């Protein structure tokens, strides 16, 4: 699939809703010891939503880069690479406490249940993102076409041609 701008935005949201959220919920369910814990779930959901939001902002940039390529395409390798860049940027910002809705420990206050500035968060956040990334990336390699036959001709948009 060679994405168009509308296709990028739609596919990103689609994968966030149908892959990102369910995988995150399953992840926190296990993390919390096979039970539902709102305070653990929320930071991870917000974290993923922030990455998605950043991606939506970057999509026009990617589209611009595509127009400088003769084939106006987007190699899977680039998709792979920039997904991790998006993760890295959001995570780095979260650690410094620059993203107000992602909790970090503040001196003199009770530390939050999920602390993005802690060392443990590096492993956890990476594991979480890996678990979301793998099925998302694989879906782009073709399986989405089995459900949406026209998707690949529409540059990633849903619906009829």
């Amino acid at each position, binding site marked *: 699939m060679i994405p168009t701008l509308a296709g990028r935005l739609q596919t990103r949201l689609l994968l966030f809703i149908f892959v990102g959220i369910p995988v995150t919920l399953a992840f926190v369910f296990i993390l919390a010891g096979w039970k539902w814990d709102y305070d653990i779930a929320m930071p991870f959901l917000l974290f993923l939503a922030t990455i998605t939001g950043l991606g939506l902002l970057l999509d026009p940039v990617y589209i611009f880069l595509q*127009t400088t390529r003769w084939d106006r395409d987007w190699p899977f390798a680039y998709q792979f690479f920039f997904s991790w860049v998006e993760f890295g940027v959001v995570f780095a910002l979260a650690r410094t406490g620059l993203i107000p809705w992602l909790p970090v420990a503040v001196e003199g206050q009770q530390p939050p249940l999920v602390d993005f500035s802690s060392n443990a968060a590096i492993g956890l956040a990476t594991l979480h993102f890996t678990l979301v990334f793998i099925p998302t990336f694989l879906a782009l390699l073709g399986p989405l076409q089995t*459900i949406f036959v026209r998707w690949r*001709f529409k540059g990633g948009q849903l619906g009829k041609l």
Partner: protein
Amino acid sequence: MIRFPVRFRVRQIGIDGNTMGNSRILLCEEPGEFLIGKSEDSDVPLTGDAVSRRHMSLVLTTEDVRVRDEGSTNGTYVNGTRVGEQVLELGDQVSIPGWLLELLAPAESEASQTRIAGVEVDASLVSRLVITDDTSPPPARRNFPEMEFADKDMVGIEALRASGHPVEEVKFCAVGGGLGSFVWVDHLRCYGIPASDIRAIGTEEVCYRTYQRYCKNSQIPDHERLRSNSLSRPDNIWGFPGYAMREVGKGIGVKGIFQVFGEPTLSESYTPRAGDVFESLDIEAKRIGWSDMLIKAQVLGLRKTSDGRYAVAYKLWGGEAHGEARNRYIVADVVHLSTGYPATRFVDDFQSFITSYPDSRAQVANAYEPHDQMYAEAERRNGPVQVVVRGRGIVASRIIQRLHEARAKNPQIRILHSMRSPIGPRDGAVFRKARRLVRNNVEIQPFNWPKSCWGGDLRVEYENAGEEERGVMLNQLGGTTTAERSDWIAIAERGSEEGWYRPVYGNISNLKPLPSPGPDQPDGVQVSISTTEGNEEVLNADYLIDCTGLIADIRRSPFLADLLDTYKLPRNHAYRPTDSGPQKGGPTGLRCTNDFEIEGLRNSNGRVYAAGTITTGGPYLAVDSFLGLQYSAIRSVDHLVTENIHKVPNLGPLRSFRGWTKWMTGRQP
């Protein structure tokens, strides 16, 4: 006007593809129909196991010279393309197994009738012709389907029935039976249409036969790789899993997967092997019941019927039926046309060379016609062989690769690569901010169009553009390119260093036969080139292989020409860039809507769609590609769904996924 006698040069071809014995000449002194075949009462009896008793006829009128296949088992070919009936032009080569007939220019004088290039040849075949005393020209028209179709643009079902020819009624009819037809029928089947509602009419038993023949001629045998994407699978409407994954399953290796991951920037683009594509098509053909839907026949004409459908007239090929019983009609609600390349036409100077110097015909070949004998001869020759390869596209790359392989048997083969002008690294085509890569004086592109023409922003933009803008985009984005393959690059580089490969830049200004230097020495061809520096370079070569491509002139298909004339169908046009803006050029493909419907053929509820190269210049750039055929199929079948007249169910997410699981498990749709 045709000048009689019409002359054919007849040569026998051996098993190895070489010509055997002397040329003979066949003189046809008057208009008439001459049957050629194994049967003793043929006008021109020819021997050979693969020749049918009634193989083909030469049909000569004062207007034109035609060849007509008589339902032979192994087919009649004009310049390498299998034909039913075909008007011939001077220099055209008609082949049937073991024989090659070539239409010569009229003789200058009576005395030179039996001479070719000044040399007297055996004209004994002339005596075998039955020449009638009747001086009136033979009826120019066939009885079928002219009795019902001629001069009409609408026919009644009653009239068809009254004709006595069998009439079958069906909902969907695909004309062509090649890859385009197959892909369209595959979509109908996967959308839920039963096989009993569909007929495909084509000249080949197997949908990829014509395509495979083109590949073989242009030196892509089954084990070689094509120029196509992993997910462009004509046997799978979902395109998943791709060919790269299929190779892993077959144990060929995982290299393809990494190629797909990095292509085209970090790795060479993956492309499937021809044989794998054919094998997967065989499997799908079985799954959807292709052989039950297929009628092996040639379509002669199509007319609207007065009840809002279409009558398709066809003549069965081979099989049990004989004579009049082969002529039949199908009446269908929806018709799909995908007849592929009409009989091929060559570039002008090549065409005039083969017309003027028929004796040197074996020294020159178009890359798409059978020319294996050149490699065989070059490999066998115990001495230097010079081959001029003309053109810089993907076919030229492949031909050079084949010649490089031949060098293993005869290291004295040299390749002269004739290209119009050198292209520097910064001379690639430009489209807005982007420039095409150039390597070794050839523009590089993974496929024959920029990738986003299939489904990215260029597809959308091109579809929405007006006629003129489309013409401009087609010019900017098209052009001759080849794929980036390390083996091809290495051949050019090693060959240049070692002196057996040399690029020559300039326009070919003259082609002349080169007489044989002595007994046992073969003829050659002299290629004069006006070089870019303004010099004249003369290459004395043994062979010239022209890789500048095929000219797909749809009027050369009698079936399409009749449709164009009867319904005054509009055509697309090429546009040439000039200083004062784009200028309209010659006609190209059949005009169709964005849904690939031919609007001029709409007949109340009846619909006609088209696909493939016959729609060139239309709503999509990459029409002549596997994925392009799938695109046009999904557009036209979705159009049927939206219109909701012919009860084609939609393929939404759930039904699509269910259909895909059936594909995966090999169950019928």
